[in-house]
């Protein structure tokens, strides 16, 4: 995602802003291969007066983006959520943060303060039960609340109520130094540390007019692929667990632990904290470690392949996943689905392909399941394929990194020209384990003036409720939950 000096923020009035957004909405054609334009970010700048809506539209074919801004000078503005469901939650967020009312919003209620709002069931009639679940629920999970409307075992409707963990991270960042905010970026969603930090750091470097060295970009990508490995292992393990495959669960959890230990040995933190820094240099001398990394990856890969193939040949596992939690293709288009969840619906989208095309040189291939039923089994299959692609990418990135001279690259900010611009806007878009992550920053003399975060999970969560109520029964919920593998922390921020 590039924002060249000539292509600055376009300040529009609200009508023009709405027209531009609706033209993007039309790009999400029903049933098409992938949209020609994507909504990367939608949010509000609430530290300026009057507050202003900000939208970033990505052009996947060129990797470029258009930046649109419109001031909310009145107390109300016309909601687009009734024609574009992807804006349902973001518009509610704008309402919560600024008090401005989106007129015509179909379901306006407090989103960021779940303790101030009581959900009530949507279905009524004989035999309908409302079943609350959470925020504290079985097993070790993040906190979120779900209200099921059921008839017998059948789930008729599911309303998720999230944002229990809203920490106001974007607001906290305003006025802090770029380096201090890096620590916050690492803690938006712990299991996506590398993804969020890479997106943030890319945005900051772009805003500062800094040209990132190739070796640094390769290293960041390598960390992100390592993160994808342990996340996919985690999700596959959880799917095995939800379908009662205890040996599969334990063995794939073992693979996850081996990936975490590898990350810990490489960077000193199992979750890759401190590994990615703005204006940084390559953190590791890869020549010294690449053979060890390759050996340990090979062992993890062999174990993964063995147990995945066992899972794929076990009828009780496959039967449990097939046809469960189907995401209809219409929803995928309406809500702008991203990541493995979108690719399991047959949508050819991946931020690596669209915004980091160089990754195809290091072995990236897009994984889309041919059946594209959008069910739990397809989400499983996409992750299985992506695991292998990530292994291949890490091998290829390692051979590049090992052939570059670490000493030359480790001069860091002193060796390469540091930030050249003191004020500016920048954007970073990467493919995290759950899908596309976009960060938008405004930097002013080394401090953050505005920070916008759109995690992958924030696009997928609204579809989760629909897919759960799509002809499933109560006992399907754990399987659907595991197959989506969403982050609460990444949405809540």
């Amino acid at each position, binding site marked *: 995602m590039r924002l060249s000096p000539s292509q600055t923020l376009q300040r529009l009035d609200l009508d023009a802003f709405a027209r531009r957004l609706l033209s993007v909405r039309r790009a999400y054609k029903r049933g098409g291969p992938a949209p020609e334009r994507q909504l990367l970010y939608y949010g509000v700048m609430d530290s300026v007066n009057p507050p202003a809506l900000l939208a970033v539209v990505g052009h996947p074919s060129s990797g470029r983006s258009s930046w649109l801004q419109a001031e909310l000078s009145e107390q109300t503005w016309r909601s687009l959520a009734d024609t574009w469901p992807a804006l349902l939650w973001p518009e509610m967020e704008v309402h919560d943060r600024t008090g401005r009312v989106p007129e015509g919003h179909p379901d306006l209620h407090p989103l960021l*303060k*779940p*303790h101030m709002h009581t959900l009530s069931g949507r279905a009524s009639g004989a035999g309908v039960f409302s079943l609350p679940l959470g*925020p*504290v*629920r079985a*097993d*070790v*999970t*993040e*906190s979120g609340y779900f209200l099921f409307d059921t008839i017998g075992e059948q789930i008729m409707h599911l309303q998720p109520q999230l*944002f*229990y*963990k*809203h*920490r*106001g*991270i974007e*607001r*906290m960042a305003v006025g802090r130094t770029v380096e*201090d905010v890096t*620590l*916050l970026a690492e*803690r*938006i*969603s*712990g*299991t996506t*540390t590398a993804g969020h930090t890479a997106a943030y750091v890319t945005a900051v470097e772009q805003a500062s007019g800094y040209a990132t060295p190739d070796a640094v970009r390769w290293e960041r990508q390598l960390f992100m692929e390592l993160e994808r490995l342990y996340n996919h292992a985690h999700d596959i393990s959880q799917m095995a667990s939800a379908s009662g*495959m205890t*040996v*599969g669960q*334990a*063995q794939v*959890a*073992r693979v*996850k*632990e081996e990936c*975490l*230990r590898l*990350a*810990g*040995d490489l960077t*000193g*933190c*199992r*979750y890759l*904290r*401190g590994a990615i820094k703005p204006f940084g240099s390559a953190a590791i001398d890869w020549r010294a470690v690449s053979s060890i990394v390759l050996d340990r990856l090979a062992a993890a890969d062999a*174990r993964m392949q*063995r*147990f995945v193939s*066992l899972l794929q*040949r*076990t*009828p009780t596992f496959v039967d449990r996943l097939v046809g469960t939690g189907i995401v209809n293709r219409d929803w995928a288009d309406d809500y702008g689905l991203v990541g493995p969840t979108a690719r399991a619906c047959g949508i050819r989208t991946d931020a690596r392909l669209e915004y980091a095309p160089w990754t195809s040189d290091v072995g990236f291939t897009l994984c889309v399941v041919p059946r594209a039923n959008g069910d739990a089994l397809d989400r499983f299959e996409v992750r299985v394929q992506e695991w292998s692609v990530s292994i291949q990418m890490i091998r290829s990135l390692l051979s590049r990194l090992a052939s570059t001279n670490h000493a030359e690259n480790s001069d860091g900010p002193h060796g390469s020209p540091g930030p050249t611009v003191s004020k500016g806007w920048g954007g970073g878009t990467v493919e995290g384990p759950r899908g596309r992550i976009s960060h938008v920053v405004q930097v002013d003399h080394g401090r953050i003036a505005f920070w916008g975060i759109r995690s992958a999970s924030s696009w997928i969560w609204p579809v989760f409720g629909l897919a759960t109520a799509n002809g499933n029964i109560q006992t399907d919920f754990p399987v659907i939950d595991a197959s989506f593998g969403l*982050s*609460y*922390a*990444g949405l809540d921020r």
Partner: protein
Amino acid sequence: MLANWLRAGIASGRITTKYPRNAAELTQRHPAWQTVATETRACGRESCSCIDLCPTGAIAFDTTHAPVVNALACIGCGRCVEGCPEGIFAWSKQIDLSIPADNEWSGSQRQAGVLADGSVAANADTIASGTRSDRGTLEEEACPDWNAVDSATLRRFRAVFGRSLNVRHIDVGSCNACESEVLALSNPYYNFHRLGIFFTASPRHADVLLVTGALTYAMRDVLLATYEAMPRPRLVVAAGVCALHGGVFQDSEQFVGPIDKVIPVDVFIPGCPPTPYALINGLLQAAARRGEAVAHA
């Protein structure tokens, strides 16, 4: 198919750690250790830039002109390790940093109970005075032998609980790295079931409440309700810097305060996130203290 699974499971061998009976298996750098920084010696200054370097305010100077790292607030960013001109900070090489709640600073807070509105403050000052006496120095290259400490703890744990300790986990605002580490306890490497520790679905069946995350206003009543639902005597273990102190989120407008401002805490497990070894250590320490837990039932 069942036979295939059985064969594949057995063929993959045993990898479970012998910790806490034996020392933890440590790898190349320090991922099995708590990645917190610790001071190694005094520098003779009264104040220094390391105080500003620390993003969570974990460093303070004591009266002997030595900087003190508050383990409860250290997120392991390494800025002091890299930035100190005297080089007196080092990575901790301990895994049993869990701090029982009876050191002096937490004693007074224990009775505090439910937070009075408006009285929330980051308690960096009070914490800093209490963590100076962490066991062991950090200069040894080799990992010290933990057996002596832990077999005693383990014996007490067995005596009180037999082989059944039920843990209810609650996330009150974490980034989900802590959840990932808590979940890792049940993987084959750590397999905490071998120690008789289990997760339970309901707080009504729980002996221990394991709290992670920076407490948000939305989760405060949920935490109190969960704590209320537990049978007495009950234990509370707070894990991770966010729960102990607030860490990077201490200035958030949504942050209520450290967990022990809201409910009494028995053991604190530092780290961002705490490693599975540290979590096992903390849970065992908590369990061994159950007799005392009756006191604040």
